């Protein structure tokens, strides 16, 4: 829609007036044959209702509209206008082509975003600054955030319920799979595949660990105290149940591969330790060396489905 004609200094040529809105042409386009010019917004609005020139009713479609000639654009850009914010005290008089850039930084814009100087940290439109009350605004903010928090909590509870539901279904499915596996070789292959993938997914979810002192390794851990603690931690980290018992067995040197099974072999293979990809056992001084992470390691240094190494210290 065009610019209010009263904003301009002196007379504005009739050629520069939009016949639709009767304002000064804004971003004008012209009809191809008759060359009648209109504001872009005005003529698009009209053509969406009726594909004709609003002055002489010649057929015109939106795609036929052209930019107006340079001379017309020059005439427009040279017109002198007051600022949009003149009613708010801006006395600037501007060439029409510099109005847009002035408006961006015009200090009299009543909606100019201003930071509150009383320290609440909110950014508010200038004309609301006088009415602004930090405590009230922040209170409103807290209320709205509490509302959101309640919503989130509710959603969380619902999601938990759904997750439990899914867990139960999953357990049933696994049960079913196990039964199927026993009777059908294809199913067995499929199930093995799924189990392998489950282990890999879990392995990828764990963070890498760095062992700074391999000497701190405990090769004969205490079953009840240490091993049970590790098992709980593994279970909580999402360890697939079908490998957890095997893994726990592999805490102890009696189940370790030939390369690790005695103090002597361990001493000989010490330099191979650095090749291990180790994962954290969350919250414990222990690492997991999973087979799926360590396919590059020599066979005599690895067992299925992986090793658990408990340390006295030195895990990062």
């Amino acid at each position: 829609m065009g610019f209010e004609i009263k904003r301009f200094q002196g007379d504005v040529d009739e050629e520069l007036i939009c016949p639709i809105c009767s304002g000064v042409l804004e971003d004008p386009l012209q009809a191809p044959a008759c060359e009648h010019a209109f504001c872009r917004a005005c003529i698009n609005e009209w053509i969406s209702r009726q594909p004709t020139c609003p002055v002489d009713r010649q057929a015109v479609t939106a795609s036929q509209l052209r930019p107006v000639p340079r001379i017309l654009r020059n005439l427009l850009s040279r017109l002198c206008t007051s600022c949009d914010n003149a009613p708010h005290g801006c006395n600037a008089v501007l060439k029409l082509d510099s109005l847009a850039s002035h408006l961006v930084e015009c200090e009299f814009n009543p909606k100019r975003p201003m930071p509150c100087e009383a320290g609440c940290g909110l950014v508010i439109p200038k004309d609301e600054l006088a009415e602004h009350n930090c405590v009230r605004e922040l209170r409103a903010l807290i209320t709205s955030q509490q509302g959101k928090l309640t919503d989130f909590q509710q959603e969380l509870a619902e999601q938990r319920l759904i997750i439990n539901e899914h867990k139960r279904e999953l357990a049933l499915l696994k049960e079913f799979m196990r039964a199927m596996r026993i009777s059908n070789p294809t199913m067995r292959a499929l199930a093995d595949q799924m189990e392998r993938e489950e282990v890999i997914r879990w392995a990828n979810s764990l963070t890498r660990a760095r062992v700074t002192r391999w000497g701190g390794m405990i090769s004969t851990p205490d079953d009840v105290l240490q091993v049970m603690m590790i098992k709980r931690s593994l279970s909580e980290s999402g360890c697939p149940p079908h490998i957890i018992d095997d893994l726990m067995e592999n805490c102890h040197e009696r189940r370790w591969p030939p390369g690790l099974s005695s103090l002597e072999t361990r001493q000989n293979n010490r330099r191979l330790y650095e090749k291990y990809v180790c994962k954290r056992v969350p919250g414990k001084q222990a690492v997991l060396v999973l087979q799926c992470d360590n396919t590059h390691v020599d066979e005599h240094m690895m067992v299925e489905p992986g090793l658990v190494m408990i340390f006295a210290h030195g895990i990062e």
Partner: protein
Amino acid sequence: MANIAAKRIKREFKEVMNSEEVAGGYIKLALVNDSWTELQGTIVGPPDTPYEGGTFQLEIKVPETYPFNPPKIRFVTKIWHPNVSSVTGAICLDILKDQWAAALTLRTVLLSIQALLSAAEAGDPQDAVVAKQYRESQQLFLLTARHWTNVYAGGPSAIWEFDQKVQRLLDMGIDEHEARVALSHYDWELERATEQLFS
């Protein structure tokens, strides 16, 4: 009211006020309310027509979507014309309907309505009864139109015979306008008009 509509109407109002037609007394425009949504137009019946000497009031309603849609205009003053309803005052004029163009103004519209009084479009009637009379008995049509102009629009020429016939029906207790409508519809045959009124 949408900004663009109000802006246009304000400007058009000024345009009409400064026009030669207003200076010459051919058309007039007045505001009805402060919101620029309703105006009252006045046109003078053109010379050499049965409307000559009459002054016709028009109701002009400006829609929210003006000028993308035409103003809604009807005659408030009763008029006998094939393109104007003798009952509601609705006008059948293409530029007030599908031939509306956004660059048309209240001034051009008022002048078009005035021109319609000079040159009726019997092929596109708004009032079928009037149009039939216009086609089939021109003389009677001209007299009827002049009579209506005299009675409703302050036109100068009274038709003595018609006034007499209306008076006859008035004496029978018929409402004056109802009587005139019936007589006009039945080509001023008193018997048929009476029959219709009492049936």
